[in-house]
Structure formats: C-alpha cells, structure tokens
C-alpha cells in the first residue's frame, strides 16, 4: 500500500516522539516484551492502522505491536488480556470487510515482520511460512520447483498468507483448486488465552476435530496464526487461456453454467462487463473488444489432450450461447496481457470515479443471468454506476459500485444498493460472502441468511476458542460487541487501489 502524504507527515512526527518514561502500564508491559522500537503508541501509527482496504471509517487503534516470533505474539496477547484489553491481528490490511479495523483502541498485533519462509519441502509438497509472508512472494520463491501456492487473490502482491488464512481467501484459480482452506495443512496458533497450539497435521487429517478447518476463515476472532503449513500444488504441464466476447452479459453468464453442466471444470472462469473492459483495455492492451457487453476469460490446465478437447468443447458451447469470437492466447505474452487486464481491474476504476464500494456475494451459478440483470436494475434505479468483474465459475459476484462521495446523498444510495444486492443474492439461494468475509461490513446482514439458532451455534464455536471475548471482538456475529463510532462507508482508502 502506498503511504499518503498525510500519513507520511504523521509518521515523521513519530520519529521525534517523546523519550520520557512510559506512563501507560499496558504500553510499558508491551515494551518490556518487544522493546521500544516495535511498539508504537503515537498518533501516526494509530491512524495508519485504523483502517483496512474496506470503506469502513472511524476505526480507533490502540497500541500497535510488531512481533517477530511466536513467543512474542503469545506475549503480546497475554499482556493485552492481562490488562483486559482486546487485541486485533492484522496482516497487510487489504481486507475488504473491515476485519482488521480496530474498535475502541485494542492492541494491534501486526504480523508483517513475521515474513520468513521457514521451510519448503518439494518432495512432500508443503511449506512452512510466517503469517506475514506476502502471497506473491511465496509463489516467486517457489519458481523453478515446479510447485506453486494455488490461492491467488487479486491482492496477492500485497496481502499476507496469515490474512489469506484468516479470511479463507479465494482467487480466480480457486474454481478448480479450491479456496485457501484446501491449501492449509496445519497452522500454529496463539489462542486468545496465550496458549500456543498446532492445529492440523502436515499429512492428512489430524486426529479428532478439524480445528484447523474451524480456524481458517475465523477473521482474527479465534487467535493469531503464527506459522502456517501450506500445501503446494504442481504446476500444470499445459495451460490454455481463452477469451470469449459477447454482445449480451447473459450470453457470458449462460456459457458459464453450460460449461459446468457439461462436466468441464476449468481452472478459472471470469466475467468482466463493458465498463470494466473500457477501463482496463487502454493500459492492459489485452485486445478485449471495446464494443462487447462482456468478455469471459476461461483458463484450462492439465495434460495436453484433456486441455485440447476442453478448448474445442468450450468453443462449441460459447458459440451456441452467442460468443462473437473465441480467441485462444497464442503465447505466454498474450496470456499475461489477458490476465493483466483482469487483475488490474480495481486499479482502473479511478478513471471513472474517486470512490468505490465492492460487494461480494455468491449465488447458484445457474441463476447468474437473472441475478445480474436484477443487479443492473438496482443500480439504475438509484442512478449509480456499477462495474462487474467476478469469479463467475463459482457464482461469486463482485459488483463494484463507483461514486464520488462528495456528491450529496450518494452515500445513502450506495449503501441501499449494496444491501439490496445482498438481499437479492440470498433470495436467489445464495450467501453473504464468498471470499471477503463478514468483518464489520456485513455483520448486520447475518440474520438475512441465518436464524438465531444458526448464529448461536456459530457463537459456540467462537466462545470455545475465545473464552474471554477479547480476540477481535465486534466482528462477524451480530451478537458481539458493537463498534459505535465506525461508519460503514466513507472515502476510498489512500493507496494504489484507486
């Protein structure tokens, strides 16, 4: 994330911070554990760590800690808890649901200094990594081994593997390979009482309850991941990337259902609509037709004959559903450009409006066409602009509402549209979130999908991990503590994303 001028000046002020004795007992105890250099109590750090990649505003960080080892994380947690103070784990802060946004000055436990790749075992296809390792850095580190880490969120240049574990992240290639949970073999966790446990096992299932599975996706409310054993996936021998373009969004959506119904599971199936195409083509030079209502990116991988047959079948299916052209990338360069457009879609929206609100819901994929047309209606009725770029193969919608927050009344309309999209998705047999999580943003929608008894059962899981209720409280479940001063929408975050 790029640091804004304001933050930089605040950080500058930090440098000449007081050197006098520490008066706050909590700060004193944390400094005892980490030393002065890795405990920040100044306003600069507090402001920097008060928001994440979501549009949530008004978070209030307390003391910010930068531990470098499991023992230090455990000590930070024990100190916080002994002072009765909540703590919030934080990776890179790219989360889109406010999961890392602090409420009421908790101790922030930032994992970015725990960025060591401890071990890569090529033969057993696993690696132990620190939670602060950046997703793409692991893949780069693995180049030449014939293996990779499959979860590939679009934020992979910045987000941490600890954050991926905590949000159970997805990415375009999770259609075939599964989301983060399928790639986490074991995880070392500092539980909210300071106890260190290893959940899961390097090979196969550990005995007893799947505590690893329960922990993944816990959004920082179940403890802090301090070392992660990830499964490494074989690089496919053959990869083909196809670009299909349509003059109706429905054509692309129907192609997706038909491909899956035909028993083909591509590695990725991504749709981008016309507004996205117009925004990204000028710098991706991917050759997306500017007059298309939608393009569908299909990636097929595996052994050569299987890939070749699937290409032919997809060509037939796409054409039957109105594809105007079906282009197979001729070389690596063309493939890269097709993906560059997809992965930079968020960056491109700045061209249109200064602010964005990105939603994330999942619907049954057979209802894509119908739900998408409802989404466009909801947006039109409220005189807003939406860009759709999403993981169509999983039915995972990402309507991106772009706006200018300075326009009076626009915020209310954006908020209303977001809620309506969630409602439409749930009514269509879908769920609130496919990969960004609930955090603060969707807490109030939980009862749309779950009954009080369902939520009570989830709370039982949470309470077993966090008896005192001090691990990232106020997140996920509506019954939890509230976070009064936080507003759900504000200006888009500083940084490169917009």
């Amino acid at each position, binding site marked *: 994330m790029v640091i804004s001028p304001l933050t930089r000046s605040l950080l500058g002020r930090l440098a000449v911070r007081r050197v006098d004795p520490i008066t706050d007992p909590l700060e004193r105890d944390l400094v005892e554990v980490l030393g002065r250099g890795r405990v920040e109590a100044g306003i600069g750090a507090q402001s920097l760590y008060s928001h994440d990649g979501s549009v949530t505003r008004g978070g209030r960080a307390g003391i910010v800690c930068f531990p470098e080892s499991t023992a230090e994380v455990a000590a930070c947690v024990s100190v916080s808890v002994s002072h009765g103070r909540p703590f919030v784990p934080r990776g890179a802060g790219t989360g889109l649901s406010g999961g890392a946004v602090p409420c009421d000055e908790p101790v922030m436990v930032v994992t970015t200094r725990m960025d060591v790749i401890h071990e890569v075992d090529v033969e057993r296809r696993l690696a132990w990594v620190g939670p602060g390792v950046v997703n793409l850095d692991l893949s780069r580190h693995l180049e030449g081994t014939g293996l990779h880490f499959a979860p590939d969120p679009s934020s992979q240049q910045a987000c941490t593997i600890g954050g991926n574990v905590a949000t159970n992240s997805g990415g375009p290639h999770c259609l075939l390979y599964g989301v983060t949970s399928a790639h986490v073999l074991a995880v070392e966790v500092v539980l909210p009482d300071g106890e260190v446990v290893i959940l899961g096992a390097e090979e196969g299932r550990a005995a007893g309850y799947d505590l690893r599975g329960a922990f993944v996706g816990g959004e920082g409310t179940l403890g802090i991941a301090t070392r992660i054993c990830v499964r490494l996936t074989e690089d496919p021998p053959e990869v083909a990337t196809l670009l299909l373009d349509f003059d109706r969004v429905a054509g692309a959506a129907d192609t997706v259902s038909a491909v899956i119904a035909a028993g083909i599971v591509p590695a990725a199936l991504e749709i981008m609509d016309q507004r996205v195409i117009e925004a990204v083509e000028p710098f991706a030079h991917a050759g997306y037709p500017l007059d298309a209502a939608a393009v569908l990116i299909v990636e097929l991988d595996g052994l050569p004959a299987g890939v070749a047959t699937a290409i032919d079948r997809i060509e037939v299916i796409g054409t039957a559903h109105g594809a105007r052209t079906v282009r197979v990338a001729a070389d690596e360069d063309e493939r890269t450009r097709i993906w560059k457009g997809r992965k930079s879609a968020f960056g491109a929206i700045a061209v249109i409006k200064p602010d964005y609100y990105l939603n994330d819901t999942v619907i049954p994929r057979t209802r894509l066409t119908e739900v998408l047309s409802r989404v466009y209606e909801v947006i039109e009725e409220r005189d807003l602009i939406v860009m759709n770029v999403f993981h169509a193969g999983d039915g995972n919608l990402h309507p991106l509402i772009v706006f200018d927050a300075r326009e009076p009344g626009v915020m209310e309309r954006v908020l209303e549209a977001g809620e309506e999209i969630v409602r439409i998705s749930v009514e269509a047999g879908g769920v609130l979130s496919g990969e960004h999580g609930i955090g603060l943003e969707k807490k109030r929608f939980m009862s749309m999908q779950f009954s009080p008894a369902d939520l009570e059962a989830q709370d039982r*899981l949470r309470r077993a991990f966090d008896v005192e209720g001090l691990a990232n409280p106020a997140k996920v479940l509506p019954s939890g503590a509230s976070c009064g001063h936080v507003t759900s929408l504000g200006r888009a975050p500083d940084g490169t994303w917009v």
Partner: protein
Amino acid sequence: MAAFRDEVGDAGTVCVRGGGTRWLVGAVPSHAGDVRQISAPLGIESIEPAEMTVVVGSGTTVADLASALSEHGQEVALDGPVGATVGGALMVGRNPLRRGRLGEIADVLLQADCVGADGQAFTAGGPTVKNVTGFDLCRLLVGSLGTLALVGRVILRTRPLPEAGAWMVGEAPTGIVMEALYRPATVLWDGVRSTVRIEGSCADVADEIRCLEALGFTAADEPVLPAGWDRWSGTLPEGGVRALGSGVVHKPGPVGAPEVSVGVRALADRLRDAFDPLRRLNPGRDPYRMTA
C-alpha cells in the same frame, strides 16, 4: 428434518446409527442400555450437475448416492465400506481413496441441517460451492463422530466423473511415480510396491499408462481392503499401506492412539462443552480415540 428433530428431542441420551460399518471407531456409545438409537433421514432430494451439488438425507448409503450421481455424470468425495451412510462417512471423516482427484473430505460438506443437544434445529454453512459467511461449522462437523450435533440433511459438493481411469501396480518408489505423473488420483505404497490410480481424458490416461509401463508397471484391479483391515489416519506402520499425501493408512487392526497436545485437547473439550454440555449426543464416543 422436523421428524428427525422430534426424535432427537431435548432430553435423554441419543445416538445415530448409520450402516454400522465403523461402529467401533472412537469407542461405542456408553450408557449402552438407555441410549436411544435413531437413524438419519433417507433419500436424495436433488442433484444439480450445473451447480456441482447434491442435497441428500444423511442416512442415504454412500453407494446409493454414488449410483444416482453417476447417472448425471457426477461423483462425490466420499467412500467407505459397503453399507456406509453419507452421515457416517462424514462423521468418521476419512479421506477418500481417490483424494488426488476428488479432493479432501473436509471440503465436501457445504451445508448441514443439524439438531443440537438442546433439541433445536440449526443450519451450518450454506448451499453454494463458495462461502465464507460466518464461522466454519461444516469443517468442524466432518470427523466429529456426531459429538457436537446430529446431522440430518446435507448439501455436498460433487465433481464430474473422469472420462477415463486406470489402476496400475509396480515396484518403483513413490518419488519416481510422482515425478512421472500429473496429479494422480491415488498412490498407495506398501513398502515395496506402488499402486497407482490415474484419471483424465482418454488420450492423457493412455499416455500415462505408457509412461508407467516404461517404469515396469502393469494393469491392476481396484485394490480392495483385505478382510479385517481398515483405513486409518496416521503415518506408515509396519505392514500397512500408505495413501500418499492423504494421511490415510490401510492396515489390519487398529493403530496406536494419536498424540494430542494438552492445549489442543483442552480446546476440543471446550468445544464439546459448548455444544453438548450434558453429553447427550453419542455419549462415550471420543474423536480423539479415532485411531485407538
């Protein structure tokens, strides 16, 4: 589900019996005399190949589900002895033999309609193939031996059946096999021989067969567990057969009790206390004695 909920009720101890094929795993329910024994709902509600999901009563047998799914060109990552039920397979939670292609059993359960120890019905997870809404109760339930809640109806992730497949056996060590093949469905190692399952398109499977033949492999039948053997989670014991990468071991008789740290055990106990403080559900069973 309503009838199942009523049967569970809110008082007295109760256990669910599936096919009884792994009844001894995790110890038999205690209070033997007064435990009410019930069965889970039967039947397949719907199969949706375009969603890659199936809705099924958890008392349905794995075999019945497999044959119904195959008519739609789909399959599911569950297996087990003849007579095993969907609910039983999920609650025991062993990875399928063809894990390399089918995936892990942990990833198969999308939604579970349950009855809790307080007699209330609740739903874990959701119907879609991708979902991170709230806490992941589904993964917690798989392998829980019915000690946290009783599962009546489930939505499972399915996969398209492979176009072709073959079993091969040979003496090359697994390292060489893994080098030679792309994502084999199964690699079994008994200390001398590798038994391998390859799957994919007809032409690719034919290529991989040729590649294995060059390593001295010959065609084999699907391996069946000898009488008195079972599949366990663990590492390679003397005289057992290990399924590479899945943590499953095939061997006669039980394997030793797993080592569990004090912290993990305490967390597990807190979970059980939170879900079933009075130990109404499958009393006496202990998922930590899975392999004992």
